[in-house]
């Protein structure tokens, strides 16, 4: 029964989001939702590392930025000098291909960083992840020939998709991008949900809960941390690519630490290690600035509010909003509930 309730609420939620632009035609609000959605995708991907494996990765924006830059560069084309007169050049490629390359490349970076940095834990891991993001920012800033440095990559093409029977869709402007982001967010949600409810996800959670015990039952620590990093990096790269082709400009500040912090706040506030946490946290911190703006609050004060909120949440809601509500709900519903027992019917035949 609870399965049906879950499914129904998921579907009504999706239906609400799909029909939203039909009755909500404020373009600016749609813009806010698109940006919020992109950040939610990034936060969901961070949650895989932060929430499920328990590794406080503070370099996550690097994967987002790499996705944005790679997708932009592949779709714009480039020519760089590698040694002397030898040049490497790439003709502009279709955007969908560029986005695919971006996801793969971000995943590859995740693989390498995972291999290197999971040699260490705790404070060291945190500082390595911060350093990695900073190095990527400095490369983006200084490799003028490739990235244009502080001049930014401009005029990034938008996504064009030819769909058989429908014709070509141009993802320019608010409405198509809204649906694109919605689709990517649902995809990300589904991938992460499948992952954490599988053998792989249980291995990640086990590492977070009790690493020695996890290894004692045969879980290969590095393998699953790296797997989590690769998937997480790939999804963050996807968010970055969507972002780049929506705002159509990317500059090195996309790697700023403050964006990692934004993602961390979203995850921690919503509830790390829960599927809905980053979405709830993302909606709050994506839309809150606009709400505050309605009250004519200066951006600095808004950030002060963020900082203070973060501290208060750690003190008073250390698990985040979603787990707190879930516990309250359980306490309320638990009284009338019957004790769960072993399911008597096996849903699917055993092989």
């Amino acid at each position, binding site marked *: 029964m609870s399965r049906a309730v879950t499914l129904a609420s998921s579907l009504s939620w999706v239906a609400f989001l799909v029909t939203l632009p039909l009755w909500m035609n404020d373009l600016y609000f749609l813009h806010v939702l698109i940006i919020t959605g992109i950040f939610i995708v990034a936060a969901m991907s961070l949650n895989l590392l932060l929430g499920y494996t328990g590794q406080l990765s503070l370099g996550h924006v690097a994967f987002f930025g790499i996705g944005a830059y790679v997708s932009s560069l592949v779709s714009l084309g480039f020519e760089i000098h590698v040694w002397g007169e030898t040049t490497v050049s790439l003709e502009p490629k279709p955007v969908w291909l560029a986005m695919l390359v971006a996801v793969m490349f971000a995943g590859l970076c995740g693989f390498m960083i995972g291999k290197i940095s999971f*040699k260490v834990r705790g*404070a*060291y891991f945190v500082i390595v992840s911060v*350093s990695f993001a900073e190095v990527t920012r400095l490369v983006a800033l*200084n490799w003028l020939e490739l990235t244009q440095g502080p001049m930014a990559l401009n005029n990034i093409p938008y996504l064009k998709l030819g769909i058989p029977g429908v014709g070509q869709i141009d993802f320019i402007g608010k409405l198509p991008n809204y649906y694109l982001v919605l689709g990517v967010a649902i995809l990300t949600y589904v991938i992460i949900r499948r992952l954490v409810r599988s053998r792989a996800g249980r291995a990640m959670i086990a590492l977070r809960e009790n690493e020695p015990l996890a290894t004692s039952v045969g879980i290969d620590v590095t393998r699953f941390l790296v797997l989590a990093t690769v998937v997480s990096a790939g999804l963050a790269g996807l968010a970055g690519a969507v972002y780049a082709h929506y705002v159509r400009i990317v500059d090195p500040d996309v790697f700023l630490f403050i964006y990692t912090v934004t993602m*961390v706040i979203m995850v921690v506030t919503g509830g790390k290690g829960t599927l809905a946490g980053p979405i709830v946290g993302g909606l709050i911190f994506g839309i809150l600035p606009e709400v505050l703006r309605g009250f004519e609050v200066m951006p600095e004060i808004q950030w002060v509010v963020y*900082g203070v*909120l973060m*501290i208060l949440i750690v003190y008073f809601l250390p698990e985040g909003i979603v787990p707190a509500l879930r516990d309250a709900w359980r306490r309320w519903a638990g009284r009338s509930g019957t004790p769960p027992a072993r399911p008597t019917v096996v849903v699917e035949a055993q092989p």
Partner: protein
Amino acid sequence: MDQFLQHALNAMILGGTYALLGIGLTLIFGIMRVVNFTHGELYAFGAYMMYMWVMLIGANFMVSIVLAIALGVALGAVIEIVLLRRLRGADIDTTMLVMIGAWIAMQNIEQLAWSGVAKSINSPFPSAPLVMGAISVSWTRLFVFAVAVVLIAATNVLIQRTRLGKAMRATFQDREAAALMGVRIDTVHTATFALGSGLAAAAGALLGPVFVVYPTIGDLASLKAFAIVILGGLGSIPGATIGGFILAFMEELGAGYISSGYRDAMGFLLIILILLFKPTGLFARKERIG
């Protein structure tokens, strides 16, 4: 050769303040197990206090430095008592999140208080540099270096020779044992955080007049302090001192002979290399991973 000597001199001078930054952070980590994200904000705070006393109030330059450091110590103590004391025993990630929150709040309060426009601080030293053959150095920078060296030495004396220092070292070795032996852990923690903050504020107060002051100067200072501390090994004061100088030399020589754009990247590349080959840092005395 002249060019190299000039680079080396520049690096030496810069290294002093880097070491100050690194020692403050490494003390806090070693004794409190807190990754202090507000470190850079204390640096910015020191610089802004310097601006306030020298440029707005018109106080004497030397007096202003002392005041800026004292205020940094006080602010550090307040942060420890208000934010960290109740988190004693919490895991490292939790305190890290609180410190990130504090960092964001502090930086934006600075922005509100001083606006985003960069401020410059006048120094009382003659602008004509001290010339030694083909190389030269400004009197302000020499002064900065001298004060940094004095502060590093003073910190070492404090830790090695005083009762408080003894308590701090005992806490560093084994917190429970120290508590059993009558060390007041609360006092040690407050003192440590205040001292570390004071050193960061000192670095800011000293470099403020050399460069300019703006609200986000702390970010790079924090990141460099992290690099220095990783380089030297978390919790090691000699490591942080030497790490500060190594980073300064790498940056200055890298900027001088490779590319000035990658100046700030040197530290981070160094971190990644160090962690690849010697994850505990160059001078760690104790296994500190995990």
